[in-house]
């Protein structure tokens, strides 16, 4: 779903990029078609203003140059500001130097290999200010739409009314709808602050910002001077209230998303446990270490890819998925064969044995990889964020939600629709009957434990993206995982699903009220109390088999 939502935005980006790439060179050499352009003679006259050695002449030349639409105006003005604008003392030809010191003819833009003796154009603070103002209006016509938007934002930040005409002019010539919107917002913001504008214009501006309805519009509305007419102030405060409501809803939606994302992390961490603990009844304290093994498998795959196939580094996560599943699953099968199978029916003793195993695994990883954090880089398709209705969602979080759902439903299908799943459920429900029907129960036990461990390993791949990969990685999830399984109801996959997501969302909804740590405490206590009410969790298994 997120993938579908993502595509149009990507397309727009691509089109914009192509647009910029194709048009940029043209725009650099040719003048912006819409802007009126001065003839070379006129430009020559303007440039001559820089050679007088008098500030008023320089100032006049700056304004005239900015208005001329001369294609190299921006370079010339930048050079002036940086004391790199010079003229040949003899011929009065104006030149600019780039950062490396090469000279260019200001009129034609051609490189000048051997300039004669040159004199620097002197500048003062007044000149600097004038250059900056001129640059702002020039960048309003910059070829890159992002720079145009930035220029408008800069004008707005400075509440620079002197730029309004230039901005209005640029708006009239603007073709890009995104930039048009930005310019309109800026004009509206300026109109609000401008006491000389008519009430109708200012009212229209307020309405426009109210319709935009985000945090920056709110800031602009707050910029309405206190001495503005009552009608305006009323409209503005109404608009602000409306925006506040909207922002509140938005932040709720955002919190819910954060909660879902946290819930997905919990789900990933707990789902393997829902099998080893929930289905098999093994209190698997080494579950967190299976997650850790998965995370380290991701790290190893990434390092191998970096060494042998750096071009495919972005795909290392996909390669790591099956390997993490297999390595953690293999450890799980070995653990089951060596230790767990001797302890069936004695769940509390599996706790001790697996606690010991978790210590061994932690120390093994510490000896192999060192005690420090290992860095797993995010692939490019997971960095950045997705903008949706004014809410920024980081891609890594979005992918984890998607991934957790995928893992969950894959597991559900594996349990309900494969013959292995059928045999597994048969063994869980009635071991002796299943054995009588010819199911090799020890083999099923080993495979089931391997499946649960393997899924924990897969969770490790995802968690390596948002957490530190260290030998202690698993420990931080083990308590939460058990809580999720117990809250959901031991033995119920759907219970774990509902429990993980509701705990995640509840946590994030409490967090703004109470802070992160207190929210966690509140949730823990709430779950403890809930267990008193429903001692067997949300989705309690029913029937006689439960008591045994």
């Amino acid at each position, binding site marked *: 779903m997120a993938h579908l939502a993502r595509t149009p935005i990507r397309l727009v980006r691509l089109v914009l990029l192509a647009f910029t790439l194709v048009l940029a060179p043209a725009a650099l050499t040719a003048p912006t078609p819409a802007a009126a352009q001065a003839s070379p003679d006129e430009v020559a006259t303007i440039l001559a203003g820089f050679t007088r050695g008098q500030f008023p002449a320089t100032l006049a030349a700056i304004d005239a140059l900015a208005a001329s639409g001369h294609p190299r105006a921006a370079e010339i003005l930048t050079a002036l500001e940086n004391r790199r604008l010079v003229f040949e003392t003899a011929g009065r030809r104006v030149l600019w130097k780039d950062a490396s010191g090469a000279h260019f003819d200001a009129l034609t833009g051609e490189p000048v290999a051997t300039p004669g003796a040159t004199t620097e154009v002197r500048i003062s603070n007044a000149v600097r200010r004038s250059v900056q103002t001129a640059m702002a209006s020039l960048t309003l016509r910059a070829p890159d739409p992002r720079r145009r938007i930035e220029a408008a934002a800069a004008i707005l930040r400075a509440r620079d009314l002197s730029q309004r005409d230039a901005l209005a002019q640029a708006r009239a010539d603007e073709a890009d709808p995104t930039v048009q919107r930005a310019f309109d917002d800026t004009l509206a913001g300026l109109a609000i602050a401008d006491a000389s504008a008519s009430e109708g214009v200012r009212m229209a501006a307020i309405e426009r910002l109210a319709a935009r309805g985000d945090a920056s519009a709110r800031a602009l509305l707050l910029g309405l001077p206190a001495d503005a007419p009552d009608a305006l102030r009323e409209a503005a405060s109404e608009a602000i209230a409306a925006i506040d409501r909207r922002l509140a809803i938005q932040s709720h939606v955002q919190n819910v998303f954060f909660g879902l994302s946290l819930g997905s992390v919990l789900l990933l961490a707990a789902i393997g446990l829902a099998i080893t*603990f929930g289905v098999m009844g093994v*209190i698997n*304290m080494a579950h967190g270490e299976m997650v850790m093994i998965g995370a380290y498998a991701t790290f190893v795959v990434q390092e191998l890819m970096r060494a042998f196939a750096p071009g495919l580094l972005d795909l290392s996560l996909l390669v790591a998925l099956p390997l993490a599943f297999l390595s953690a699953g293999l450890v799980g099968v070995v653990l089951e064969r060596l*230790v767990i199978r*001797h*302890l069936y*029916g*004695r*769940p*509390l*003793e*599996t*706790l*001790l*044995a697996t*606690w*010991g*195993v*978790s*210590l*061994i695994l*932690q*120390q*093994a990883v*510490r*000896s192999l990889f060192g005690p420090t954090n290992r860095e797993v880089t995010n692939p490019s398709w997971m960095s950045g964020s997705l903008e949706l209705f004014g809410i920024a969602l980081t891609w890594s979080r979005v992918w984890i939600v998607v991934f957790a759902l995928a893992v969950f439903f894959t597991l559900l299908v594996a349990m309900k629709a494969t013959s292995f799943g059928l045999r597994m459920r048969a063994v869980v429900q009635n071991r002796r009957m299943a054995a009588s029907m010819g199911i090799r129960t020890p083999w099923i036990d080993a495979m089931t434990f391997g499946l649960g461990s393997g899924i924990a390993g897969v969770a490790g791949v995802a968690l390596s993206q948002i957490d530190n990969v260290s030998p202690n990685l698993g*420990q931080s999830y083990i*308590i939460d995982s*058990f*809580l999720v399984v*117990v809250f959901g109801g*031991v033995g119920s996959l759907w219970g774990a699903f509902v429990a993980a997501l509701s705990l995640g969302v509840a946590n994030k909804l409490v967090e703004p009220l109470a802070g992160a*740590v*207190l929210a*966690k*405490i509140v949730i*823990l*206590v709430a*779950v*403890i*109390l809930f*267990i*008193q*009410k429903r*001692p*067997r*969790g949300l989705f309690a298994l029913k029937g006689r088999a439960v*008591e045994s």
Partner: protein
Amino acid sequence: MTRKPILFRLMAPHIAPAVLILVAAAALVPIANLAFPPGHALHVPTGTVVLLGKWLTYALLAVALDLVWGYCGILSLGHGAFFALGGYAMGMHLMREIGPRGVYGHPVLPDFMVFLSFEDLPLAWWGFDVFAYAAFMALFVPGLLAFVFGWLAFRSRVTGVYLSIITQAGTYALMLSFFRNELGFGGNNGLTDFKDVLGFSLQADGTRAALFALSALALAGGLLLAQAIVTSKLGLVLVAIRDAETRTRFLGYRVERFKLFVFTVSAMMAGFAGALYVPQVGIINPSEFSPANSIEAVVWVAVGGRGTLSGAALGAFLVNWAKSFLTGAYPEIWLFVLGFLFVAVTLFLPKGILGALRGLRLGRRAGEPRATSAQPAE
């Protein structure tokens, strides 16, 4: 069946020697520490006394845990919390006793409160300048928590792994709470820099030896108390609950009341152990609440032998001895050894060291292994 008099029951073959050893140690170790000069063959260095004293408090915690787990089937993964609460109660008294000798020299407020710019002493700290009150609270607070928690949990018949997991969640929640500075118990750093207790300097050898003796006697007392409970009629009901809770309920026993009683007593024992622990190690901080500590306590009991009381104490000693020996000698491999030890004990000595020894002896006497029905079910 006629019941033996209480003295006979207390002097069971696995309790009496342990109590005798402890009483002897309470008398002899301080003498060996104080009366003989360093370098003398019989001298016990103060460091050893402190270490042994610390293990004695751990052993008392293990006995408390064995009382509920070994005899009533309640596997608490949160007993470390009761231990830590008792420790905090004692720590608060020791903080108050520092008085104006703190770094900031405030007459009433402990240093960390001055540092966190508290105005007045929080309500929870009132009265802790009186030793008797602090000692009472070290028993009362863990007992109250256990009572409330147990009343809720046992009444709604939360059993088995569910109970274990929520006790673990409970201690985890307490750890997070105590990490918060706002709670007013020293936050991250906990309580430390203690000066003296009842006017005796905590750094003095005499005080340390006395604390050791107290711990040894407390452990002996704990063993006797636990043995008295488990061999009483009530104790028989506890074992019945452990082995067949539903059947016991159908026989007309109010199962939850028995459980609540033993759970509360056990929590108070753990709190007492914590109160003895803090003056000896000189610090108490929120990491004492960490779930790993509680699990470790369960491991001591399992190694020593659950349902044997003195075995739990033995387990606490052995595991902690192995831990301190290996962390010193082979820091790289000690986790391997410890982990392997847990696996090996559960696989090969399911009844723990003492349980295995007892099985051997009984087996030789009867010529056959013990009936399996007598062993704890889960």
